[in-house]
């Protein structure tokens, strides 16, 4: 969840980058670490990563934008990810996703106006025999039915 993340701070950013810059192929590791600290990858961090790894800004920006995980702005207070891949589709995932969208009033990939909940699709949590499944702020929930998704949405809105 986004509560508990640090506000962007250049010195802290420099520190995080320096911590991992010595690794082989460190770009993804650093971007993950930045996002873990700040909840997203702040734009000023991109040239700093480039500088530390002796890459161009364009290269780091290219990596940052290639991967679905990296955010350019903070998510809502809670992130609810619904698995939309085939196994969950087969087990009624379409119905569950439509219900969550209706309850929250946003479509997948968006954040509610009060910035409480970001609703996202995810393609496979590997819980394909206990489908449909979801992840709320890192916590996994399987065998979703109407009651369970309603409870998850209510929890996220709190």
């Amino acid at each position, binding site marked *: 969840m986004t509560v508990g993340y640090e506000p962007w701070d250049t010195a802290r950013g420099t520190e995080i980058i320096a911590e991992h810059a010595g690794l*082989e*192929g*460190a*770009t*993804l*590791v650093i*971007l*993950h670490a930045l996002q873990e600290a700040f909840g997203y990858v702040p734009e000023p961090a991109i040239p700093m990563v480039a500088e530390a*790894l002796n890459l161009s800004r364009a*290269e780091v920006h*290219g*990596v940052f934008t*290639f*991967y*679905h*995980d*990296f955010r350019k702005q903070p998510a809502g207070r809670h992130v609810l990810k619904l698995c939309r*891949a*085939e*196994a*969950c*589709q*087969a*087990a*009624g995932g379409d119905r569950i996703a439509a219900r969550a969208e209706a309850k929250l009033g946003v479509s997948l990939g968006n954040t509610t106006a009060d910035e409480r909940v970001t609703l996202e699709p*995810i*393609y*496979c*949590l*590997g*819980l*394909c*025999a*206990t*489908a449909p*499944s979801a992840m709320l702020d*890192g916590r*996994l*929930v*399987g*065998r979703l039915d109407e009651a369970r998704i309603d409870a998850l949405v209510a929890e996220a809105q709190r």
Partner: protein
Amino acid sequence: MTMRIYVPRDAAAVAVGADEVALAFAQAAAARGAAIEIVRNGSRGLCWLEPMVELSTAQGRIAFGPVTPADVPSLLDAMTGNGQHALRLGVTDEIPWLKRQTRLTFARCGVVDPRSVDDYCAHGGYKGLERALTLTSAQILADVTTSGLRGRGGAGFPTGIKWKTVAQASADRKYIVCNADEGDSGTFADRMIMEGDPFVVIEGMTIAGITVGATKGYIYIRSEYPHAVEAMNAAIVAARRTGFLGKRIGGTKHEFDLEVRVGAGAYVCGEETSLLESLEGRRGIVRAKPPLPAHKGLFGRPSVINNVLSFAAIPFILDNGAKAYADFGMGRSRGTMPIQLAGNIRYGGLFETAFGVTLGDLVDEIGGGTFTGREVRAVQIGGPLGAYFPRALFDTPFDYEALAARDGLIGHGGIVVFDDTVDMVKQARFAMEFCAVESCGKCTPCRIGSTRGVETINKIINGERVTENLAVIEDLCNTMKFGSLCALGGFTPYPVMSALKHFREDFGPAPARLQAAE
């Protein structure tokens, strides 16, 4: 006497309440002063019974499931009393669904404590490495080759040949890379083994390292698997502490160490060259082959890159000999395959068995049909890039060549079951949509073809010039299949064309002249 109770920590069990059950046991035992030890094991793979709790007894482990926290007080009564309970499933190893499997790779999964090297060794772990350390590189290569093991990631390339190529290459450094970017929907075997028996993956990679002369390995795990990342990291620390990783492995001159790297939500990074790019810190753009990763892989060095299950099969082969493994299977598909039964299925989970079992047996008999109780209409085999098969093809044996002969593929061994409410034209469109979103963008057939595919299928759904547009789809699929750089664009036609071929009725009215002929 202290009672030992097993409550899985596998993500699939946790997702249906295993953590709450473990907590309830601890609290209930404390409240009544009962001495219990809770072991957080992996999953046995009987997913419909999760959370499945086991009690260690003189007669073997007794299973109970599916358990909710509310069941815990009565379960504790049963465990301390006569053992009878409505959720009692009997001796775990005697449960028919488990008993009829041939568990070679998953022998320890759900049995051992995945955080304990001692428990791993007590159940036959590290015997493969122990033997490998007494052999020459050529002898190990001979074993791996003779076992007939083929890459379990999907391509089915002989593992022994891949290793031999790297062993023969000369370079200042070589790498072992484990592809744990298990992105295919309907597959979870990699996740399960990493969470339930992580040391078997480490042991397999270590054997690969000493065989080809690599001292460093990476495990690239997708970010959607935080529990697997945690389990592998913990296991690596434990293996280092006990001398199974690091310098002088097992007191020999061999050196090998591992590092986990986490992906960032790009499906295409399951493709090996794209994975290497990602490990090097770049966009996951597919590389053209040649050069093969075995010649120029990670950081331009010769690299063995194998799937989790391929590495996990190695310790058994080295411990029990190539023949013991090759004795299972059929034709050119030797050994066992951890098959994953998923989607709308009554008895879903992990079923490891020798190659050759038919699709019908897997879906109807072992899987028990759908959990909705409706007719099985289609199964998708091998993930988002795998073909949809109708019931008419359920006599197909599960084997690389047999599936290929019917325009299907084994992929990573997942089977997703759909009931008769499925709309196959939507599934075909989803395959194209998924490819469009996940395409790395390097080659045109995949990047543009998938987008045009979505548009064209939408026209078909809207009833616009259906016959002509179906011809466009067929043409597009041919272009993607033969013109794409990797399996993403190259295999997306499998679900699309199989849906069209076997479920033509879902794609709008048949051409007028055919209707007239009927």
